[in-house]
């Protein structure tokens, strides 16, 4: 699946997207923290810090680490504080 970063996560990751294999959101986040260490500040084990959020395919926002993911999913990682 593709993971796309927006805002601060993109800046920290240094890339806009990458391809990752994972079966759940928690597994995906653990993989990201391992492969892109600057992102680990925004994660606690298999969850994002409350100021960040994941979105599945541009539709629904997800936070449960057990959320299943499939091969063609597109996961976005962004700041949860949308205001300004």
């Amino acid at each position, binding site marked *: 699946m593709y993971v796309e970063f*927006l805002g601060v996560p993109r800046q920290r990751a240094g890339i806009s997207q990458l391809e990752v294999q994972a079966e759940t959101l928690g597994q995906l986040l653990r993989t990201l923290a391992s492969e892109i260490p600057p992102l680990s500040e925004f994660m606690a084990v298999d969850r994002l810090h409350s100021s960040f959020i994941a979105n599945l395919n541009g539709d629904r926002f997800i936070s449960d680490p057990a959320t299943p993911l499939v091969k063609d999913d597109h996961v976005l990682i962004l700041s949860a504080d949308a205001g300004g």
Partner: protein
Amino acid sequence: MPFGYHGCYLRIDVSNGTSEYVPLSETVLRQYLGGSGLGVKLLLDEGAAVMDPLAPEVPLVFAFSPLVGSPLTTSAKFAVVSKSPLTGRINDSLASSGFAIAGKACGCDAIVLVGRVAELSVLVIDEAGVRMESAAEYRGATCRATETGLKARLGANYRVASIGPAGEHLVRYATISHDGRHAGRGGSGAVLGAKNVKAIALRGSHRAEWANPGELTTISKSLSKRSFGPATAKYRELGTATNLLTFNRFGALPTRNFQSGTFDEAASLSPEQLSTTRSKTRESCVSCTIGCEHIYSLGSGGVRVEYESLFALGSLCGVSDPEAVLRASQRCDELGLDTISTGGTIAFAMECVERGWLDEPWLVFGSGDALLRAIDLIGSRQGIGNLLAEGSRRAAEVIGHNSIEFAPQVKGLEIPGYEPRALQTMALGFAVGARGADHNRSGAYEVDFSDKVDRRHVTLDAVRHAIDTEDKAALMDSMIICKFLRGVFEDFHAEAAEMLRSVTGWDVSAEELRETAKRIVSAKRQFNLLAGWTPAEDTLPERFLSMPLPNDPEASLSRQRLDSLVAEYHRQRGW
């Protein structure tokens, strides 16, 4: 008198410079705290709701808070509260920095201005008392020039809030500026301009004692430490402007007067792109450890870049040239114009020109030159600027053709950069907002960007979340503490109670503060009821309720659904 307060407000009749300190009871202070809450309470007591917002007798309140002057990060803030000349409803605009500390150091918890001085004047409050001085030499001066000039005249340790040319010309969305920041929305600058007051210069030495300084220091250190963490990374590292690409990605970036939720050229205006071609510095308000202000180079100077300015003067007007958008933002700051209402009103006019309903052929979407020209005309009320200075709702009434259906406003206040069809909890927040469409008094967008709702198909379950964000905002705006800190709190109400206990000595609880927030929201509604509010005002323009977003058919909001959300909101409020 409780700790943290002076227990009085300073009421000044600028007609003749007379003033008096009016006592504030501990009960009132505990019930309304400060900032927005205290401001609304004072306006209600003054009977402002039934007055013409630009009449001499109408009061204009600068309200401070118990936390101002404390070591708590982001607490140097003040609220400007009045009846809005743009909406005819309650208006509370907040701004930051040294003016708040200086105002409280004048020995009061609020300053209330009434009257109208004969000549353009500066109101000076210092150790010598209250006096009016001539501001003739600052007629037509920008906010920055006025502030700089007055500091040179009076002394560098005065703190100055001023209006620009737009306030002098009573543009209905003129701001009050201090130190490059603005009490921006709703036209408080026009209210001050109508009093013929160009600026207020403050210097004081009074200090409100704290109930428990040791505990306050501990709380302050903890809060400051957390303010350097992940919860504020967005504001520190990219600023609010980072919303631009995020909102565009979700089809929620208002474009060409809300005709689309995506802007093909959004990347050219993004902070990520701007920082590749321009130098950038960061600044902080006094007493703030976040440092959210990102200043980009422009010509020989710099301009503060915020999301709302980028959206309103960029995508909403179809302008993708970053030089034009940054210059437009800078020009609004100089003239003292609210960038959201400026961009919203110009974008509305551009669509009217496109439809052949306004004979200003130069005023077209995408033209940076047209944008800049329109801003200058608005600031001086010349040509078409005289109509646009009235805001999009009044302009629509003059233009006709039922253009009110796409005038981008609620209660007359132009809509901020959140496409309501793509963010439907925010749509509710806009519809019911006491001061009109507003993202600072309702943080409902946070709900849309969460797993609590389906943002394009919200149900009645979203209503309680929208109410929670509105109540929280009312509390933060009254204590006052910056909303950019909101992510650092595990339990905001509990921590807010700790802060207030350490400053005031009150045995205040989280539950009491929840009730306080509801009281303040209700006070705003009471003001609006007295001012003539009707339920029909709690809605959105027809455009949002009759057509989905072109590129996202799922982003569709029917009148029936919005009406049911609003009705449920009123029911849960007990109104």
